[in-house]
């Protein structure tokens, strides 16, 4: 786009008016050590600080690669459906977590054998905690 100048004016606690060609938009900003949050006109924006980003570049919460199933958020372990040695198929529910009155079923990403079960029913797990480790499906 052509070179333009935006004027940013702080008009309140975390509230910024960005003015461009006479038209102004309000942007709400919150900064944390983990990165920045912004809200404008109904859209939510987030950028992560370097280390956070690298932290989050790990397998997306609740998904599995390197055959590790991790907790997407702090939660209570409601149900553990597998034990080491079990063979599971894609989509099987391995563990059911509960947080904020919602059940979060943790499913197998593909056919595999359970090598480790790292959580107990009733226990409170933190975000990114290992729940279940999977190995290759026994032939």
């Amino acid at each position: 786009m052509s070179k333009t100048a935006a004027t940013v004016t702080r008009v309140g606690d975390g509230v910024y008016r960005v003015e461009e060609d006479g038209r102004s938009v309000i942007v709400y900003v919150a900064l944390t050590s983990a990165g920045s949050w912004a809200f404008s006109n109904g859209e939510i924006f987030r950028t992560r600080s370097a280390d956070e980003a690298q932290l989050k570049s790990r397998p997306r919460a609740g998904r599995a690669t390197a055959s590790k199933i991790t907790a997407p958020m702090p939660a209570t372990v409601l149900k553990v459906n597998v034990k080491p040695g079990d063979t599971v198929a894609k989509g099987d529910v391995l563990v059911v977590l509960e947080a904020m009155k919602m059940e979060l079923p943790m499913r197998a990403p593909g056919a595999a054998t359970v090598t480790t079960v790292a959580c107990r029913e009733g226990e409170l797990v933190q975000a990114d905690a290992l729940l279940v480790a999977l190995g290759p499906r026994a032939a």
Partner: protein
Amino acid sequence: MIKRLLIANRGEIALRIVRACREMGIESVAVYSDADIAAPHIVAADRAVAIGPAPARDSYLSTPRLLEAARSAGADAVHPGYGFLSENAGFARACGDAGLIFVGPPPDVIAHMGSKINARRLVAAAGVPVVHGDVPDDQSDAGLRSAVERVGLPALIKASAGGGGKGMRTIRDAADIDESVRSARRESTAAFGDGTLYVERLIESPRHVEVQIFADDHGQVVHLFERECSVQRRHQKVIEESPSPALTPELRSRMTAAAVAAAKAAGYRNAGTIEFLVDGSRAGAADAPFYFLEMNTRLQVEHPVTEQVTALDLVRAQLLVAAGEPLPWTQDSISQRGHAIEARVYAEDPAEGFLPQAGRLLLYREPRSPGIRIDSGAVEGGEVSIYYDAMIAKVIATAENRDRAIARLGSALRDFPILGVRTNIPFLLRILDHPRFRAGTMDTAFLDREGATLAGSAPEMPPHVRAAVQAAEHDRRQTPGASAPEVGGAGRRQIDPWTAIHRWGRE
């Protein structure tokens, strides 16, 4: 009249009840878990009693702790709100045994309507249409199989104790019957300790339309018209409105009459809701078929839309009726005017499969605008806890008609900044813009069908937003001593805009 009311709940509904108490001169007693010590419902109440640790089962779901709180605070009545113990007959009975007024229907009515099979039998006997179905005495796999066969496919297996879609299975192929029966029974037993199942014919693309009813101890039963709740995700309501775009005046009067008949048959008291399914394929027709779904024996989350179109105060009426007074209204004094829509703002990430979000509200500013009502228990700096549900606020827009209400709700949501946790506000805005929603023709499968597209994905920061973030970072560097660096610079009360102007040249 009630002198001192214990509110056995938290969040926005606890606040809602505190306010009704204040206007009525009733002393309010709030209860709090360790997670809620400084929560707004505690700040607002006249008294506050600690009831235990954060997990609900040890606090808001603990009958003994709540009764002990009521005793120690000298309360003479208990309002359960919604959720938690609000539909627990045992809790209602325990309140009565402790000499406390329970603000809700009698315990046996709660218990009776809590069994979907009993409720179905009861309203059917009262002439209220129910979906063609079968309740087999023989609960064996074989017994349920033949029930399914009698009803015919496609069919729905449901748990008698069910709710929120648990223990429910859709069967379109006879080959799936046995597996569906077993998994439904397993799920229902696990969730409710009761594996009793029944079978209903599947209604394709149904509308969820419910009728608010109210009954007092003096034989008066009235309805407060309907609420349209078809916009739901996995049986979780997201947007509710009144009137329903699916109802003609004729259909409305038939459904409200049916709801009143059901309430009378149940010997109902206080506020209740009769949920119906309307055949979506016939929606908008005067003779569209509708069927009893279930009865909710409590105040609904979405009661504000009814309050907005009727201009009545449901919580106040609940307290009057619970105290044995007559309803403050007669049926013909109740009117439905204008249009109201409620959107539930949840702490969840639509782009990540609606994963609930917990965390601190770094910034939380409610929009204020004529015709906008916000019912919320949230406050800037407060915590969205993993222990309770993810609803942050209800935004209710009231206007002259549906189009104006949608426009009003949209501009309120675009003006409702919440930072620190992701919310479903962008998702809600996309729903409001969806042609199907605009046309008012959505059914209960609408969101689950369109969900993926509506969920969207986390957007990149456009240049003007980046410029604001850079300005905030600049301000933070300028004010190292600020108590609240999280929210970009010193407090509102020290604004000097001229010194806070930045220029950003960019390509």
